[in-house]
């Protein structure tokens, strides 16, 4: 049995885990559930030795363990399959499985045959019918996933942690994976299964543990709980915002796009966007829902001038435009809050002020030199109006919490005084309070006449704040609902791709 006993993990500016306790049983599939940012991945990284520093204790078979690195965790029998696959594409299956623990003969040379035999045995057990010499590059994603499992099974592991193992594989591959998981479970291993796909969990999991905002909320037997209660425990709150009366389009659209098509830059046969048309009026909140890979992000990026190879037209205030860069889009009054704030939104090693002012430096000069006073003033304005919690405008952004970082990205977009604000997953990985503040801000901005497009994969928020909802699947818009007509059911139905 693997036990987490009062685990607390702090990062600069944010408490990722707070007093987390859980028991993971052998011979069971233990599901860990929680929304993005609930702390699932942090916990797994502690269990597998990636984060050696934390408060609290980890007990493995009743003895306390503290892994200094992933290798030690592996040695103690804890195998983990991370959400992102960690395979070297241009090495073979055998070479990947034995990476860092190669078998050598007495001359210190690689013993290719021994490794290949072990690999073949593992692949047989996992029913993957390919040669051990196959390059990872040539495998399908589902097959790569199986190789990851084989890698974890090589050192006879007692605990197998799987972080979102089905996020990139097809239905039939999922079935195979579940078969493997059940077999391993029957060998009395501790299986830890992380996912937020509830249907899947009801098929495979025996026990559940719900994490929310870094705390354990509840655990129990899967058979004693139903779908809705589980969702309620994961979300744990209603979105509490008060909408004034429904929006009615009375003016000309501020943004209208017609028949946008976009091909994959490296694979001309794949369509990223197919005949997408939409319009947005001033003061309107347009929600766009879609699953991973539906083309939502690509749509926003295309409008923002990041994909020049598209066809179709984009009109701002009835003017046809063709932006060649984000800079041009911003000049025309378009702003984008990108999906991944750390990768695309922030200069993490620079301070709050610099991050907020970076989009409008041209207005903050006198005689060609930056005017520090004007910059401070701008930063202060947004720190106050967006309630950004920071010790000062000179604090480095990497030391702030996710919610405050998100507000900084929002601030630098608002500084350009956009007429259309596009938000891509604006509340991903931030806590509830910050989420509610962001919702409130979005509605306030809309009330000032700004047109707002919000892309999200969280249904409750789409339903709560959109005036109108578009659903995307496989690069096309598959449905459009007025807020009053939309429900979780009809949105999800439209979002599921037809030919999986």
């Amino acid at each position: 049995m693997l036990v987490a006993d009062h685990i607390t993990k702090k990062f600069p500016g944010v408490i990722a885990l707070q007093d987390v306790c859980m028991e993971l049983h052998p011979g069971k599939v233990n599901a860990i559930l929680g929304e993005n940012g609930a702390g699932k991945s942090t916990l797994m990284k502690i269990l597998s030795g990636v984060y050696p520093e934390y408060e609290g204790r980890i007990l493995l078979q009743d003895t306390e363990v503290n892994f200094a690195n992933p290798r030690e965790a592996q040695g103690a029998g804890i195998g983990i399959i991370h959400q992102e696959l960690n395979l070297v594409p241009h090495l073979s299956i055998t070479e990947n499985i034995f990476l860092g623990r190669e078998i050598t003969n007495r001359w210190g040379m690689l013993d290719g045959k021994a490794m290949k035999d072990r690999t073949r045995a593992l692949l047989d057990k996992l029913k993957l019918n390919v040669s051990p010499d196959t390059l990872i590059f040539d495998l399908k994603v589902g097959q790569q996933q199986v190789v990851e499992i084989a890698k974890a099974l090589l050192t006879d592991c007692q605990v197998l942690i799987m972080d979102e193992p089905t996020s990139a594989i097809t239905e039939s591959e999922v079935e195979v994976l579940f078969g493997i998981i059940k077999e391993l479970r029957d060998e009395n291993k501790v299986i830890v299964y992380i996912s937020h796909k509830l249907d899947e969990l009801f098929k495979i999991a025996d026990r559940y543990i719900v994490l929310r905002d870094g705390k354990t909320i509840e655990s129990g037997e899967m058979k004693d709980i139903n779908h809705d209660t589980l969702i309620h425990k994961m979300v744990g709150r209603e979105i509490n915002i008060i909408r004034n009366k429904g929006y009615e389009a009375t003016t000309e659209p501020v943004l209208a796009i017609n028949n946008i098509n976009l091909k994959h830059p490296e694979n001309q046969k794949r369509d990223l966007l197919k005949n997408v048309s939409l319009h947005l009026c001033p003061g309107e909140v347009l929600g766009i829902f879609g699953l991973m890979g539906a083309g939502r992000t690509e749509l926003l990026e295309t409008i923002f001038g990041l994909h020049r190879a598209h066809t179709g037209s984009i009109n701002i205030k009835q003017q046809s435009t063709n932006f060649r860069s984000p800079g041009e889009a911003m000049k025309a009054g378009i702003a984008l809050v990108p999906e991944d704030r750390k990768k695309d939104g922030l200069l993490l090693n620079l301070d709050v002020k610099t991050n907020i002012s970076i989009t409008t430096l041209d207005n903050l000069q006198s005689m060609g030199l930056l005017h520090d006073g004007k910059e401070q003033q701008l930063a202060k304005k947004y720190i106050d109006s967006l309630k950004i919690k920071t010790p000062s405008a000179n604090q480095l952004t990497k030391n702030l919490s996710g919610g405050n970082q998100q507000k900084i990205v929002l601030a630098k977009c608002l500084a350009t005084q956009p007429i259309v604000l596009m938000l891509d997953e604006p509340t991903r990985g931030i806590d509830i309070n910050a989420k509610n503040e962001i919702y409130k801000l979005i509605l306030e901005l809309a009330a000032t006449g700004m047109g707002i497009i919000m892309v999200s994969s969280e249904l409750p928020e789409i339903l709560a704040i959109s005036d109108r909802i578009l659903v995307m699947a496989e690069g096309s818009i598959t449905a459009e609902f007025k807020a009053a007509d939309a429900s979780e059911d009809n949105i999800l139905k439209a979002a599921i791709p037809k030919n999986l």
Partner: protein
Amino acid sequence: MTLNRQHFAKFQSLIALVVLCIVLSCLSDKFLTVDNGWNVMRQISVNICIAVGMTLVVLTSGIDLSVGSVLALCGAITAGLMKNGIEVHSSNLYIGFTLLGAILAGLFTGAGVGAFNGFAITRFKVPPFVATLAMLTIARGLTLLWTQGFPISVFGEKFGYIGTGWFLGIPVPVWISAIVVLTAVVITMKTPLGRYIYAIGGNENAAKLSGINVSKVKIIVYSMAGALAAVGGLIVTSRLDSAQPNAGISYELDAIAAVVIGGTSLSGGKGTIWGTVLGAVIIGVLNNGLVLLNVSPFWQQVVKGGVILLAVIIDKANSKSE
């Protein structure tokens, strides 16, 4: 918080420099003299010019290996134009160059070569290391073509003033490097361009999505590095009163060393011009001291390499302890 750390790191190299000077003045009575002081500063002025350009490039998380060759090319172009002008035999055309014209032509050549580097890097996505490595060879080849492999020499007193003259009691090359340093400090600390340079090095994606024209900034930065190499070329050519086709070989390495000792991160986004100046001074003083102490040139190289390594190790330890 990093600002404090950077200050501390700067402080640390300053202490290292002071200690170095004290030790050297105890070991050699020639070290702490006015003459030797000017001597050192004149010697490092070329490296400072190049290293300032290098700092800008490194801040964008790039590198410029071509500066040594560009220095030679630009020196040779200025020298050749000054001495011979351009003669086109077929059409009986002769263009003479004034001193200023020749100097400007050299500077523009440097900026042009740098712009070409930037273009290759941004338009064709050639990694900076490769693009400027190619230019290292190309520019050296062009220098040999232009000079036919022979030094071009004797230009008279006026041009010699750049490398050997004095102005208000201070050597002219020191004036030049001081102007270069101050301009670069203002650019990096006080202008949007400087801010964009740090932003691109810190997070190129975020910079692009903030509406910054990343390609343009990079091309400007590589042009500046090229032009500053050309400035170095003028000083070297003037001081020697001759443009050597093999001038500036491995100067890029001294410049990178100064940048690194000065605490600029090779992965970009972090560092200061002042740090680089300090780095260049440390290398200069070390060189000078080792010569005064009659250390064999072979050992000099070993010591210099060791100092570079030590500086980076200390810098890493600093950023970890935070």
